[in-house]
């Protein structure tokens, strides 16, 4: 049908009614708009995905240590004197007894020597070396969920039990990382806004140029009594479908790039990155992006056309 239509047209025949009163279907300027929207969609997909990854990372890190803390029984006293294995074991036991009886604490887990050796051996070498150096005591704490606890109070009590006992709530490094990811997320949101704004400006510019090109045709419709709505509806439809085509292509390319990145980055063993699985809401958001951008283009086009037509007598 497509071939027949254009063959007929080259013979000066038009058997099918045109979609638009303006010659928009054969307009090469539409390709520019389509490519531009495609690129914007691609960038938007990447930006949104980055934002989703950062949200997942934040959540993963926060949840991983939520209601958790670690007690370390250090191998040296505050004055720098090395403590014996027996001293460390005794301090560990005292700390364990205190923590077991604390009302805010749900459970504790004292790490065995083997587990501690396993934990620190990558830095300090094999098991043989560990025989000659004292191992710190490590106790993992799980607080009751929803309990507002004051870590300083527990830390102070632990210091009383043993000056070499230290409580680590992870808040220090976690807040730094969360601030960093928050900043990156803010940058992603700003980028999304800039992309949206660029899309609006590009669509408005494109529609304005189309109207300049088809000024005579627009004037004719205007003189025939076509309402502003009648004229703007045509350009709205044109902008919507052009944007939809462009953004659909941009979305497909964006998805392919994300899949590639996921496969590539997914091979790392760092364990820092969470598995990049999208929630239902996130998938719908990404799938709806072309439609949202197309509607945005349509609305931009409407405002641009109406403003232009208002200048006509």
């Amino acid at each position, binding site marked *: 049908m497509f071939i027949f239509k254009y063959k007929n*047209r080259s013979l000066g025949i038009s058997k099918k009614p045109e979609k638009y009163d303006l010659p928009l279907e054969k307009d090469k300027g539409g390709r520019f708009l389509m490519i531009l929207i495609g690129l914007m969609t691609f960038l938007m997909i990447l930006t949104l995905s980055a934002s989703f990854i950062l949200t997942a990372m934040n959540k993963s890190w926060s949840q991983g240590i939520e209601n958790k803390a670690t007690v370390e029984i250090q191998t040296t006293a505050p004055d720098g004197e090395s403590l014996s294995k027996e001293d460390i074991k005794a301090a560990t036991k005292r700390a364990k007894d205190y923590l077991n009886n604390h009302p805010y604490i749900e459970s504790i887990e004292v790490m065995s020597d083997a587990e501690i050796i396993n934990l620190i051996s990558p830095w300090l070498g094999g098991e043989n070396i560990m025989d000659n150096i004292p191992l710190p005591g490590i106790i993992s704490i799980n607080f009751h969920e929803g309990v507002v606890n004051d870590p300083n109070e527990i830390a102070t009590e632990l210091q009383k039990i043993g000056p070499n006992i230290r409580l680590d709530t992870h808040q220090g490094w976690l807040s730094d990382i969360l601030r960093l990811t928050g900043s990156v997320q803010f940058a992603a949101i700003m980028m999304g806004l800039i992309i949206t704004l660029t899309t609006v400006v590009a669509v408005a510019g494109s529609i304005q140029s189309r109207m300049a090109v088809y000024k005579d045709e627009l004037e004719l419709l205007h003189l025939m009594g076509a309402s502003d709505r009648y004229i703007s509806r045509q350009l709205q439809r044109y902008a919507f479908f052009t944007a939809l085509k462009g953004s659909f292509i941009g979305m497909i390319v964006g998805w392919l790039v994300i899949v590639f990145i996921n496969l590539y980055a997914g091979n790392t063993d760092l364990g820092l990155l969470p598995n990049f699985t999208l929630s239902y809401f996130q998938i719908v958001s990404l799938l709806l992006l072309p439609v949202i951008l197309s509607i945005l283009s349509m609305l931009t086009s409407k405002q641009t056309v109406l403003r232009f037509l208002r200048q006509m007598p």
Partner: protein
Amino acid sequence: MIRFEHVGLRYGIGPEVLTDINFTLEPGSFHFLSGPSGAGKTSLLSLLYLGQTPTRGLVTMFGQNIGQISREERKNLRRKIGVVFQDFRLLAHLSAFDNIALPLRINGRPEREIKENVDELMDWVGLGDYRDMLPNTLSGGQQQRVAIARSVITRPRLLLADEPTGNLDDEIGLRLMGLFDQLNRMGTTVLIASHNTALIEKFGHHPKLILEDGATRLDKPYPGLKYKMKDAS
């Protein structure tokens, strides 16, 4: 029905093209507007089809002062006016059928009605075999007939035509003048700008406005009609 009182028109900061135009067109009347090129015939027509706003004076159309009506009301007025432009102004990407159907589509008429009316009119103006042809494949005369058919398809209350028979042979020209005459008998007010004196003479029973050196004269008395123009050249 249509009244111009002390109307003037100038483009930008240029000289006045029309000065102190005064006339009244009664409903259902038929007039020729004649005069040398550049006398302002097209400018006067553009005021009549609301393509321009007068720089001064009072224009009343269909009982409405066009200086005081809203944009929506202007659009409604425009829908009552059919115009045949001197350069046809056909939309090049639309077939002859779609060009003629355009005013009906703008008026929101149903497609079935559009097809019936347009097909009938195309047959009448001798374009029945050119329904799907694009304007650039039609001869000048055929394009002119498309333009005329487009202007009358809605049975406008006022028909304005700028040299409507310029590219037509006598037979087709007379036939289309017959169409204008028929529309006029159905109540449409017709104003035709033309310098085809032979054609005007054939329809000599209609009043004729002649532009000469910026002034106009009426070649036969017609009640309530006064006309004055300034040569733009």
